[in-house]
């Protein structure tokens, strides 16, 4: 079967796309799949840092597109996971250096040998976003449980639908567990109600994400971490497995409500 291209995007910046790309990529590789992560945020690359591979970069995506190197030469193998690769973005160029058809070509070449190609998109609806979305078989929209991020996610979901790349799937990142337990996190159930899309993951707010980012070691590799588990669950759902959402808060708690909403929304 040809590999699947999954683009991770958002309307608002800084909601956790790069974090999600690195972690979903690492988790899929941890399951034994052959995975390539592509940093499509040209000019603002940072997926390499999150994966701890910055010092190995020789060639980048723009070099591939402009024919200065072969695709293989730009692929950096992860230090820990044998089947995880990164194609970094160029740091010194801008988004005009590549086009949607360039992205399509690169991804089509990768589909032959790899199971999943995860594209880290820049935020917004401009050219960089369209480059990232062009090759996608599936689009994952990341949001935070806050009004402005949800509004922008809604806009992106609409555009993804208009481009016939939909239906998008949603990751709600940075849920605050204390607020959830106090019952103050209804906002997240509202998120789903408003966006009316399939939920593919809920990731808690966790200081350890920052620590792991600084270390260049995605938290999904930490088998003991709950946040890592949230990303591993997303990876399993990407592969088509039906992984239930964590029920630890009881039927009427937040997750109880969420999973009801999902069931209500998915028939």
């Amino acid at each position, binding site marked *: 079967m040809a590999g699947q291209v999954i683009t991770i995007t958002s309307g608002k910046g800084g909601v956790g796309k790069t974090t999600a790309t690195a972690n979903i990529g690492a988790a899929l590789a941890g399951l034994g799949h052959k995975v390539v992560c592509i940093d499509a945020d040209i000019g603002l690359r940072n997926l390499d840092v999150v994966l701890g591979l910055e010092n190995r970069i020789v060639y980048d995506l723009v070099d591939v597109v402009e024919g200065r190197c072969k695709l293989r030469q730009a692929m950096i193998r992860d230090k820990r996971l044998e089947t995880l690769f990164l194609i970094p973005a160029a740091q010194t160029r801008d988004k005009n250096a590549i086009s*949607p058809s360039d992205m399509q070509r690169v991804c089509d070449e990768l589909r032959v040998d790899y199971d999943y190609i995860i594209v880290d998109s820049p935020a917004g609806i*401009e050219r960089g976003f*369209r480059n990232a979305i062009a090759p996608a078989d599936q689009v994952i929209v990341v949001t935070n449980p806050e009004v402005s991020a949800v*509004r922008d996610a809604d806009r992106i*979901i609409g*555009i993804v639908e208009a481009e016939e790349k939909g239906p998008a799937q949603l990751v709600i990142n940075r849920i605050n567990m204390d607020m959830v337990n106090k019952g103050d996190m209804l906002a997240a159930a509202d998120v789903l109600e408003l966006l009316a899309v399939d939920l593919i993951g809920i990731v808690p707010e966790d200081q350890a994400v920052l620590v792991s980012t600084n270390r260049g070691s995605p938290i999904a590799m930490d088998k003991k971490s709950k946040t890592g588990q949230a990303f591993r669950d997303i990876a399993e759902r990407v592969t088509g497995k039906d992984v239930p959402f964590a029920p630890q808060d009881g039927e009427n708690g937040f997750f109880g409500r969420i999973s009801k909403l999902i069931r209500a929304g998915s028939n």
Partner: protein
Amino acid sequence: MPPDVHIKGIREGLLVSFDDGQWPELEVALINEIERQNDFLQGAKLILDVAQHEIGAADLGKLRDKFSDRGLSLWAILSTSEATRRTAQTLGFATRIHNIEGDGDLTEVSSEIEGSDATLIQRTLRSGSNLEHPGHVTVIGDVNPGAQIIAGGNVVVWGRLRGLVHAGAEGDEAAVVCALDLSPTQLRIAGYIAIPPEQRGEPKPEIAYVQDGKVLAEPWETVTHPSAQPV
């Protein structure tokens, strides 16, 4: 011979239209024409009449970039194709231009203006959508925050109305807005503007209309306003 491109100044900006031709060629001809006249066109707002051509979201987005690279901004797409208009609306483009006066052939160019009286939208209007219609608008679906509907006539939403809505946008004070859950960010009828209260009870079907210079809302079933018949 390349197809002809017509660029004409109107109050809202530069109106671009084409002679017959196929879409990709027309686009190429347009870009060439713009490059040729670049000095004159700098900073202009473009209204593109694509007639019957069907243009997808990805292509419209690319077109917007091509214009902005050349110092022009594309803000409106006019089309007789329902699919093209819908895509343009989703991307936030205007799909009709207001106040076309005095210039006979322009009204012909803008197909929407002489279009049918009511339009039916069967999908959710998400943030950034921009639906403008000279007649009545009926939506079966939600209107999310950040979406807007501007209608010459009534607006009926069979769903949650949470975005911005303007009924009677050309001055018709008899226009009404109804929704199963009427919670717009802002509601306008003709020249009146209402901002609904922050705290609302259980959602219920409501109708809003203008009476004695005020925007009023009441439950949809006990309608007293004469124009509140289904559109």
